[in-house]
């Protein structure tokens, strides 16, 4: 009888843990889906506001000089870091995806290195871009060097619809 009681308790605990985990998973996915759908409905606005976040960089941050400017080694290292951390959202060739905007647009390419560094450091958390200050400062500058080595897609801002048509993912 005692064994039966113990086995029932063990099974009940595991059952409760499984149900709890399932309920928890469903709640998290429901909420994050709702957030994503809300964001998805306003993707264009998000992309615009992400570009607009570049303008929020303080003047002092904007004026910072890139210590690796023009350094081909830094471009290569920045490209490697971009592949490791950024392609997931910005696409293989930085052309943008449904998750994040193109980095070839004029808004980005015409920005100062300091402004790009500031965005990388602070992210645009409310729009889904995480902060990247977990990368050392030198690595963030290497990514900036790589971004500024890319060929601009167009010197004039395109419509966001045509931009999203070029998405790679």
């Amino acid at each position, binding site marked *: 009888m005692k*064994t*039966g009681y*113990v*086995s*029932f308790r*063990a*099974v009940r*605990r*595991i059952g409760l*843990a499984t149900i*709890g*985990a399932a309920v*928890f*998973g469903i709640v*998290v*996915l429901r*909420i*994050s*889906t709702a*957030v*994503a*759908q809300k964001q*998805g409905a306003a993707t264009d606005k998000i992309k615009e506001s992400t570009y607009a976040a570049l303008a929020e960089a303080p003047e002092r941050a904007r004026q910072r000089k890139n210590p690796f400017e023009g350094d081909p*080694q830094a471009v*290569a*290292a*920045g490209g*490697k*870091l971009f592949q*490791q*951390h950024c392609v*997931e959202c910005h696409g293989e060739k930085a052309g943008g995806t*449904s*998750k994040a905007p193109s980095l070839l647009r004029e808004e980005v390419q015409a920005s100062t290195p300091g402004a790009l560094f500031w965005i990388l*450091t*602070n*992210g645009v*958390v*409310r*729009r*889904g*871009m*995480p*902060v990247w*200050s*977990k*990368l*050392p*400062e*030198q*690595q963030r500058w*290497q990514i900036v060097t790589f971004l500024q080595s890319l060929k601009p897609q167009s010197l004039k801002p395109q419509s966001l619809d045509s931009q999203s048509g070029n998405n790679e993912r």
Partner: protein
Amino acid sequence: MGTHIISKLIRQKFPGFIPILLILLLLLCSSSLSSVWAQESPYIVTYNHYLEEPGNLEVEYFSTFGTQRGGNDFHAFWTEFEYGATAWWTTELYVDGQTTFNDSTVFTGFRLEHRFRLLQREHLVNPVLYVEYEQITGADKILKEIEGHDGESDLADSNAALRKKHKHELELKLLLSSNFKGWNVAANPMVTKNLLPSEPWEFAYAIGTSRPLALKASPNRCNFCLENFAAGVEMYGGLGNAQSAGLHDTSHYLAPVVAWNLPSDWTLRLSSGFGLNDNSHRLLLRWGISHEFSGFGEAVRRLFGGRP
């Protein structure tokens, strides 16, 4: 008879078997997902302010080998499923178990954890709010949080005796973290409340500092580049409870930590924690392995017919 065999199987095999099975299942299910190179800190106990990237799932397995005076040494293990719900909210599920040598292997409970980024931008000190609910037994030995007057002697009993104690706890932490010249410094003050009304609030802390071995990235993809390694040290322990706060009858650990972020998207962590007083286990040897999957949230949404 059938129930008895199943019960025996679950009790003996569940803790070691299920986490590994879950990882294998997840790896199989997520074979269509791309993985992503994670730049993980080496901390095992301390948290810094970085959250999981939105939509990504990180699966982590950790082991702790602990020495035990007045009892049997043990190997405790836990699996973490960490999901970036948004850029400011990360949620996590832990499943814990342990093997006490010359005794038994037991499933010891689960934990649900949420971390909320409180400020949108980076500051000198960056705060993150941590909320955790845990439902574990007294046999839980992962020692990820040393609270109140926790000490080595609490775990000296047999698993059968320890499992009779149940903890339903709420934990609150303030994760404070700062970066300076490549160094990260993190401090986690913590309060814990067993949800039984008779139990007092308990206090604890964890602090840590770490740094990548190289701050500049090399141009080539490499396994052994210094930039792939991070090293540091963490210290953690209890600070008493609401009825008797302070350092008396508490345990504390100092643990050098190292992480190796592999270009193949895996991260390995090692830590050897040394007990700093007589209440502490002499040695807590920990290691962990983790893998990060990008696009997990999108894949699940697609599975249920949601828009990507």
